[in-house]
């Protein structure tokens, strides 16, 4: 706790706050929550779910097979709920502070160029070490 959650993580936890969901359910719910701005892909989703499960924020609850497709349902744990709550509080505080300051002075936009090439190269070097 204490570290800000990334937006997809935050949205996944929020989606699960309404009750247990399977993978596809989470994807749909996150899309809806973000008004279509965040569309999770399965690889990303399961990466995040694995991490959250490892941290004890979600647990796999039950499985069912629909149309020959395995669906595993994930549930928010109490710990996960606490993390989500803390994060929501933090975001609300930030937003309130931002609004307060915006009322008093104008803000300037600041663009930071990304360096996408480096990320790809790092991935490939890293892959070479894993063999």
């Amino acid at each position, binding site marked *: 706790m204490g570290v800000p959650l990334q937006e997809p993580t935050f949205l996944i936890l929020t989606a699960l706050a309404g009750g247990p969901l399977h*993978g*596809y359910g989470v994807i749909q719910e996150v899309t809806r929550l973000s008004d279509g701005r965040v569309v999770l892909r*399965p690889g990303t989703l*399961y990466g995040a779910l694995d*991490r959250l499960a490892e941290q004890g924020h979600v647990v796999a609850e039950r499985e069912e097979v629909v149309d020959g497709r395995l669906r595993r349902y994930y549930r928010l744990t109490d710990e996960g709920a606490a993390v989500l709550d803390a994060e929501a509080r933090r975001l609300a505080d930030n937003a309130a502070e931002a609004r307060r300051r915006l009322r008093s002075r104008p803000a300037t936009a600041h663009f930071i160029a990304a360096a996408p090439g*480096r990320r790809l190269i*790092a991935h490939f070097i*890293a892959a070479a070490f894993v063999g």
Partner: protein
Amino acid sequence: MEPLARRYRRLLFAYPDSYRRQRGDELLGTLLDTARPGQRRPTVAEATDLMLGGLRQRLGGSLAADLEAGLAFAAPFALALAAGLGGFLMLTVERMPAGIHGVGPFRTVGPAAYAVWLAAAALRAVLPAGLSRVPVAAAMTVTAVLIPAAVISGYQRPPLWVILALLGFGAIAMAGGGEPLTGAARLAVPVGALVAAALAKALLRWQQLDGMWWDTYYQTAPRLAGMVAAAAVLGVAAAGAVAAARSRPARPYLWAALLLALPGGWLGPLNTSPAGPTPGIEFGRLAEVVLASCLVLAAMTWLAALHRAAHADLLDRAGGLAIGCAGGLCAFLGLAGRLLFVDRDWQFGDWRGYVGWVLVAIAWPFLAPAARRATTVAALLLMLLAIAPPPGVRGSLTVLAAVALVAPGRPASRIGAWLAVPLTALGTAAAAAVIAVYDNGWELTGWVAYQQTAALVMTVAIAPLTVAVVAGIRAVLSGTRTVAGALLVLAGAGWIGLLALPNLARWGPTLLLLPLALGAVLVVQWVRQRPVRVARLRAYVDAHQADLQSLAYLLTGDRAAATNLVLDALAGAYRSGRVEDREVRRRLVRLALNRSTTCPSIVDDPLWTAMYGLDPARRVALVLHVHAGLEPPQIAELMHRPEPAVRRLTDSALAELARRGAPAK
């Protein structure tokens, strides 16, 4: 299966086997859920997503992120070092005394590239982020073109290692560059280049060499530049130590230090190899460079291994690599000795001294471990009996054979295991050919001194021996196969040390500084993390002790032995830094496989009595299946064996029990 599902399934091969077994069906189900109606193929975006997901799984989290941060941190250093090195060389080594002419006022064609490096460093201050890689690319291109340009024009060129080091620094600057800079940060690279050049120049003056070595080509100058590179490496590593001391992540700094040390190490060493044919092997500059690179790469793999489950099977691969290297070297030396050298029979020895190694390397994947040992011994004897390779070559081959004998590995099962040894042999032979061509003045045939070339070519053996040492250290540290590990360390490090130590004083600075710097950072990190590790262990023990104890009791049949087993497994997991349930259980099972058991005295059941009379592998498999209620995939993972083998074990254990007249469950 419908075509879309089949194609998705193929993409899921991006994930590690074990993950795919556990989660593959679920992932596939979700993929099919998200597919558009009527979709027949995965989209590019889906494929990319799965590739990245699989990569992330294989990397086990943050390795790529650390590396990325390390590259970004190292990039300005790399560019400043390359430009500083260029400026230093241009102003000192390259400047010819008045009246003597080379390439204009310079000795070699090198300054053409050095000037572009200096310009690239200067432009870093003014160009916008999007264009900042362009001058570096230009400098790298000009540097690479120096080699053909020197050949065509007939002028001298800078030594190969200087060119390669510049290209190495350039690669780091390219990969990690592109960061937008503001304010004073813009000046960092040009100022760094000036500082690097001035430091090297000061060293030169300190050594009182300024102006008096124009007749020695490049001999000492790259070494001084290497000192400056080593200082940069140390500085970056020190930043890592400070970060670790303040409980901030130190790994990006370590990556940056290692990345810089790789080309930095190529600048360091003087040529220590004796001129003329020598009967034994002595390490020359090539060996020093290879060894420095191997050390850095070993440190990198070690750092990478901190992120994920260690390759327990590195020890199993070490022998195959060693024998592949021996086979490749002998294939080259035997063939070249017969065909390419002017003195065919002189010092080359008997072809039978070589052929055994080649045959063993070819047969290796098809043989069982015992047969691998036997054939290695046969090749060794054949070499010693035949009037064979020069003594130094014989020594290196013997050490490689020792590694193969200690770690013959497992029977090949996956495609990678089948190909590893032949590919190693081919790669070694190719590297040997390049080195031999280089050693014989870039001539393709008609080579002269067989012994000298053979000694130089044997340098390649450093690579598999380093792997053996790393595998050995890991095995010793993790407490599994300690004896084999220690033998590997002794063989590899002993041989390399024997050849390297006599000339150590003349070696480049990086090689000495690097382990020192790394060691310091790691010690700091270790000390800082100790309380965390202890707390984690305590929490784990509190939560799982009862489970572990009962599993161990089932496996050993004795309460005291079970406690010992649990403690050993916990200690091993703690030492390896991975106190996780899966790891502890795996260790528990592995330890149980090597221990004798007694039937629990309190049990009066013929099935139990019979079960504890089985051999360890079948007993453990059966206990895990019948009493711990595990399924074959889980047992396979715990026992570190393939699933079909586990099924066979449990089946034959049950059959054995039935045969002994016990009622099978």
